[in-house]
């Protein structure tokens, strides 16, 4: 098959262009292609049948095995959803709550976005749709107080899962990132060890800035998983390679639409295949 034969430069250029267009990043794309060229030169492309297939295997292995977002340990299992404005946090929470309900868990939602117009109303509608309780305070109140009450309520009622909605915030705004740190501390105060999962919601249409988002949110509150939304569009979300490589944060969920059922587990092989569609 490929025994120490060089790959033609046109194929390599096409592959590099595909990777860049998928938002993998210019430097990452050229590193991947250089690695590919070197493998071909050494005759190490193996039986994969084509350069493209070899590349798909390499990229899948970069992402590792698919990881699931599953509650564990003592209840309530607390999930803190964070991310920049408009990424899809509230919608993802609604979908997740519905999925957990279908799996037989009881769910409580904390309306931690006390800032944005109609944020609480929006979450309440998702609460109705997913049959999850919603703990809320007045708009404009301290989000940490809502979070504390929500976890207390879940403990009192024996609720299985608490999902906390927070206001969208750009990672460049230090007062807002400080507020998020406080929310995290309050979770732990209300229930030592909480939050058990910090879910960073990332819009697949974002470019290289998504890596910065992941870096800063991770630095601030420690991110354990990514929900990559709006993959029903044409953006590929290739930035997740850099996020995995640099920060070792896995994508656990993907959003593929606005409906309550439009949430899927992240399957690395399907994701890689879609890069080349």
């Amino acid at each position: 098959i490929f025994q120490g034969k060089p790959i033609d430069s046109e194929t390599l250029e096409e592959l590099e262009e595909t990777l860049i267009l998928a938002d993998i990043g210019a430097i990452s794309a050229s590193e991947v292609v250089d690695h590919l060229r070197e493998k071909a030169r050494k005759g190490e492309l193996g039986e994969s049948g084509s350069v493209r297939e070899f590349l798909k295997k390499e990229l899948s292995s970069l992402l590792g095995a698919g990881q699931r977002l599953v509650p564990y340990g003592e209840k309530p299992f607390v999930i803190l959803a964070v991310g920049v404005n408009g990424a899809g946090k509230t919608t993802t929470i609604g979908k997740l709550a519905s999925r957990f309900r279908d799996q037989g868990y009881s769910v409580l939602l904390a309306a931690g976005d006390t800032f944005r117009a109609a944020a609480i109303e929006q979450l309440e509608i998702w609460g109705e749709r997913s049959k999850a309780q919603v703990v809320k305070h007045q708009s404009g109140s301290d989000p940490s107080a809502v979070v504390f009450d929500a976890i207390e309520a879940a403990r009192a009622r024996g609720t299985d899962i608490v999902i906390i909605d927070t206001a969208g915030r750009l990672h460049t705004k230090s007062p807002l990132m400080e507020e998020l740190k406080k929310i995290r501390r309050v979770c732990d105060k209300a229930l030592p060890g909480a939050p058990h999962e910090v879910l960073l919601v990332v819009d697949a249409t974002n470019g290289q800035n998504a890596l910065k988002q992941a870096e800063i949110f991770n630095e601030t509150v420690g991110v354990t998983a990514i929900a990559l939304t709006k993959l029903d569009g044409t953006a590929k979300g290739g930035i997740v390679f850099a996020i995995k490589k640099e920060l070792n944060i896995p994508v656990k969920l993907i959003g593929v639409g606005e409906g309550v059922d439009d949430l899927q587990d992240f399957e690395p092989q399907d994701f890689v295949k879609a890069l080349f569609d």
Partner: protein
Amino acid sequence: SISEKLEASLKKLKGKGLIGDEDIDAALKEVRLALLEADVNFKVVKNFSQRIREKALGRQVLDSLTPGQQVVKIVHEELCSLLGSSNARIALSPNPPTVIMMVGLHGSGKTTTSAKLARLFKKEGRRPLLVACDLQRPAAIDQLITLGTQIGIPVYSAKESKDPITVVSEAMKKAKTGAHDVMIVDTAGRLHVDDSLMAELKSIKTVLDPKETLFIADAMTGQDAVNIARQFSEQIGIDGIVLTKMDGDARGGAALSIREITQKPIKFIGIGEKIDMLEPFHPDRIASRILG
């Protein structure tokens, strides 16, 4: 920074007098990388690079600048000219109301920007009416009503309605009877590849016959900016662009891609969540930001 990188790749040029072939290739490689890292679309970068090459080749290296500075200057000038002039004007219609339709992807900032724009018109002495035409997103109507209340601007809505066409037809009547000279219509977020929603938007536009269709785009948008802009431009038709969330640290290369594809002016930038955070667009500042 790009200036430092270009200095490094071009320093052997000093005193050579003219920018030649291999010199420019090394410099262009750095420029292309900077633009790609800034999220400018791959194909847009390719075309841009070609234009810079033509402009830079054979140019006399001015004594006052190093070759690196020379190339940065050419690139910056070309970026500014591509980004278009500072033009925050929305022309008013001779027959009121001036109808402005806000369109774009999910979460790009349409609802917030609708309110921001309405506030600006009110400050200029106009009587704007906001129209809540997003019947899809949970509490979208509440969101616009809440914003309208904050700035004392009426919002037309019909919560029980299932049909955006009915909503805009009724809104137009309301604008006339209420003597509103500006009507800003917020629409639901939609994907450029959702045929039925793009068709719906087309029908809404036909009924509204807006003076201005504004494409609201998130400054963090990556390579996909070209696909999105092309579809909205070709299927719906747009008159202007607003880039939101420019208060973050996204380099904003999507601005160049969207400009290239649509050839329409960027009119405003959103620089924050609060309702007074909308500014006119200035190409030179954005050019420096994209270049890094």
